[in-house]
């Protein structure tokens, strides 16, 4: 650090030391420690048994299904918001950005709790529906897949919007104007010019939301029903309740591999420096 004109590359080392000691080493140690208790043959047999068990297969299907739905919901609901953000200036821009940023930086447990208050049997939405005479019995909005879908879409929506916005901000609005000038209708110009240019953001946003969704724990654990078990919940249960460390390790390994594979694709298609709307 005190060398005169030297390259400051070594300054990255303290951060690497922290990540090495408290992130990489624990992960490697955990997998080796848990999985090396048996011989490799037994281990593979056991891994296959764990991952083909009914609980794991059901959880894997649930996880992928919910992650896909959440990605779809955030994309469809978030795209117009990001578009509006990219098109507006002044107070409109500030208000919409405020409504995205405040939930984004609010604790996940708080955001989950607030939706539980809204969606519960005696929650605010059911209270309002009954007061309006629309339903007699409370609607089952919480402790099922619907509850998980709403909660997770809400938590992950800012990631989608900010990623889409980062891509849309780079689109030259004069291209759409040129299409108008050449006689294209608003809808035609949008679909043929604007939308294809925003596809890059659609792919990045969908990837990041899907990656975060498959590892989600807090929201599905609190808002789902007894049969809605996602893979991260199964891992937590194996450690906390059944004390079945090998099962936890095998399922973690699978989830980790899936996450890293998707992250590698994300790395290829996007600029990681702009991850999650940073540097905007």
């Amino acid at each position, binding site marked *: *650090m005190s060398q*005169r*004109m*030297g390259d*400051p*590359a070594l*300054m*990255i080392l303290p*951060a690497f030391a*922290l*990540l090495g000691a*408290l*992130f990489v080493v*624990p*992960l490697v140690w*955990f997998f080796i*420690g848990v999985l090396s208790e048996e011989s490799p043959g037994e281990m593979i047999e056991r891994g296959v048994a764990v991952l083909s068990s009914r609980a794991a297969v059901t959880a894997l299907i649930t996880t992928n299904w919910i992650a896909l739905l959440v990605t779809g919901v955030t994309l469809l609901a978030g795209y*117009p918001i990001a578009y*509006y953000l990219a098109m507006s200036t002044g107070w409109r*821009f500030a*208000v*919409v950005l405020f409504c995205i*940023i*405040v*939930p984004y*930086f*609010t*604790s*996940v*447990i708080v955001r989950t*709790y*607030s939706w*539980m*208050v*809204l969606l*519960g049997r005696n929650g605010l939405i059911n*209270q309002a529906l009954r007061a309006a005479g629309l339903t007699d019995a409370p609607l089952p909005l919480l402790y099922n897949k619907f509850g998980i879908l709403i909660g997770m879409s*809400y938590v992950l*929506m800012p990631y989608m919007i*900010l990623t889409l916005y980062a891509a849309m901000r780079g689109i030259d609005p004069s291209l759409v104007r040129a299409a108008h000038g050449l006689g294209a209708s608003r*809808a035609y110009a949008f679909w043929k010019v604007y939308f294809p240019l925003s596809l890059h953001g659609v792919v990045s946003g969908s990837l990041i939301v899907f990656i*975060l969704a498959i*590892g989600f*724990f*807090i929201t599905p654990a*609190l808002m789902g029903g007894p049969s809605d078990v996602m893979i991260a919940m199964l891992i937590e249960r194996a*450690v906390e309740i059944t004390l079945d460390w090998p099962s*936890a390790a095998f399922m*973690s390994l699978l*989830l980790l591999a899936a*996450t*890293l594979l998707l992250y590698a694709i994300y*790395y290829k298609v996007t600029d*990681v*420096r702009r*991850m*999650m709307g*940073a*540097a*905007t």
Partner: protein
Amino acid sequence: MNGRGFLPVYIGLACLVLMAPIVIVCVLAFSGQGYLRFPPESLSLRWFAAFFGDGRWRQSLWSSTMIALIACAISTVLGFFAAYALVRSDMRAKKMMLSFMLLPIIIPHVITAIAMYFLTARFGLVGNVVWIGLCHAVVALPVVVLILLSAMQAVDLNLERAALSLGASRARVLLRVVIPIALPGILSAALFAFLASFDELIIALFLSGARAQTLPVRIWNSLHLEIEPVIAAVSAFLIAVTGVVLLVDGAVRRLRAPSMAGGAA
């Protein structure tokens, strides 16, 4: 997208849905009743009194704050050096190194937490506030690096070159040139690092034991029993902390030179 009427109406509704849960929890925190009804029939501070009057909640507030301060200090210092190295060094594979440093926010927290717990339990460090702060620094580091990377790109390299050519050491350049110019960014990074730890649940859930339960851990434990209004008060408190961080960050951003401002998020 055709028709000018649809999009603004949708945006208005979307903003309502995005903000409503947060606003409603804040209002419910001031409810005078023992059950959750909106709008509350009467207003009171009884749930805040229950929060701050309970020794265990106060203990959690203390644990959360200490852990977040430790995580904030460590991740900001290490993240500053790392971001500086990434911006100024000629080393290769910078993108790869950055992607590696972002892994703690990509890899599911459950896996990280279990692996950390596996290590922590061996060393008998469950419930150790300093240790949890160190572990939280791991997940706060990516936040710091991302913020400082963009802040540091705005520091004019010529100023550093000038100082170096006039005989200043690298340490002196950092202290007298880089840090003063990047200070608003460093402050932002520190604020969001604090928040990342203060709001973190899963790692704290595994590492805190019975001794060092943070506010999110205690909310988690309470939510498994019943949805009581005191949780609304604690939630409103956490939302207020987020609000303060965003306000201070906004003020800090305004301090930046006009050439560096103009960013949005």
